[in-house]
């Protein structure tokens, strides 16, 4: 379970998160929508400790992310993250990209790490690209590679930060399909996204962020239906339609 309790985040004078509460149970898929700059991505960074918080607490399986004694590297292994920019390691082949952290972080043998990597690359449909360098892969393929890389650490949770925003339109589908597959397999996911149809189809709950506040959270029928509770949600969804 991921528990976000009243977190506040400032970047200098900019108050990006203004007291966010969110609990995500195992197996749940939560999509976070909202305008750029509303704090959605920052929320993910705060959940896996890539950003410090000024107030509040985040617990992952009961362990406080921002507490002093927490082994953050260990905790992050359980929180796969996929970024807007796929950040493939350019000096490694697809297989080596995925096998790297199982080998050096989980201390698997090279053989074991490669098997894990191969399994995850097949999982995301890149079985014919094992020995290819990222420069020879399309953006969509690189993003699936990034998903495989995160999955190779065998995380319980996956965080997606606008995983399709930097992709050419024709490549968005393959990445969303991979994410759908994960959701179907029961992966616990928090997806920050601008893909409303994806959010509607896949989510158990959808959260709408507005200027650092979680305006509304509820099942997709509530958010995308005729009458979301918040006026801001309504306005946002009308504007992007």
């Amino acid at each position: 379970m991921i528990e976000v309790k009243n977190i506040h985040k400032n970047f200098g004078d900019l108050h990006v998160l203004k007291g966010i509460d969110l609990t995500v149970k195992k197996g749940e898929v939560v999509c976070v929508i909202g305008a750029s700059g509303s704090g959605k991505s920052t929320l993910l960074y705060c959940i896996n400790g890539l950003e410090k918080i000024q107030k509040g607490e985040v617990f992952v399986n009961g362990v406080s992310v921002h507490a002093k004694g927490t082994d953050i590297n260990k905790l992050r292994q359980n929180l796969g993250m996929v970024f807007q920019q796929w950040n493939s390691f350019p000096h490694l082949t697809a297989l080596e990209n995925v096998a790297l952290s199982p080998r050096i972080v989980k201390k698997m043998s090279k053989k074991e790490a490669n098997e894990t990597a191969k399994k995850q690359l097949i999982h995301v449909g890149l079985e014919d690209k094992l020995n290819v360098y990222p420069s020879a892969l399309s953006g969509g393929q690189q993003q699936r590679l990034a998903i495989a890389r995160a999955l190779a650490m065998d995380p319980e949770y996956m965080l997606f930060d606008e995983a399709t925003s930097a992709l050419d339109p024709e490549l968005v589908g393959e990445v969303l399909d991979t994410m759908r597959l994960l959701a179907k397999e029961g992966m616990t996911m928090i997806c920050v996204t601008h893909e409303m149809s994806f959010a509607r189809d896949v989510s158990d709950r959808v959260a709408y962020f507005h200027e650092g506040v979680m305006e509304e959270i509820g099942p997709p029928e509530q958010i995308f239906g005729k009458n979301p509770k918040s006026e801001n949600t309504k306005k946002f969804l009308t504007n992007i339609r």
Partner: protein
Amino acid sequence: MEQSTAVVFFTGFQLRDIWYLAEAAGRTLLISIISITVGSILGCVFGWMLYSSKWLGAMTLGLVLDAFRSVPLIIQLILFFNFFPIIGVPLDPFTAGTFVLTIYTAALVANVVRGGIEAVGIPMRRSSRSLGMSYWQDMRYVVWPIGLRAVFPAWVGVALGVMKDSSLVSVLGYVELLRASQILITRTQEPFIVLAVAGAFYFALSYPLSKFSARLEGKWQS
């Protein structure tokens, strides 16, 4: 190494003079290899320090390194060579020259390395950290290989430059390639031949490095 000496003034350029130059080229190579190797290792450490602490970079280390980068090498050499005896540690020309050349290399490499680390970018590093890598694992397996490849051509430029700049150690009286050619010119009065041969030696020293680096870069690109 024993240096052969000319007995008679103004004798023509002979075959054994080539051996004399070759020995000197060996000294140029030795001084270059030591300075480039040690200087590059120091440069990596300094470059990392410049990158990781803006305060340190701007206020202390950065200033020192800037001084070494900006003051002409020939001035540094003469200053240090004359400075060491003052503090009671007289150094021979080879040690003093290598010392200055090493620090000079380190100053140049530090900035190259800092550029390399910066080239990797925060998003890439967040990716590796999000996979559970520690700071040092990220450095060792991600930042290091990506960043150093990015700045490798710049490093080769520094290394070739230092090899040629090692000729300035001649002002301390150390008989490396340039100094040896000057001696030969005085004796033979045949500057064209002597300088052509010396130039060929410099080329022979530099060419393998640039060839090797080109091949390495080609390998990385594919």
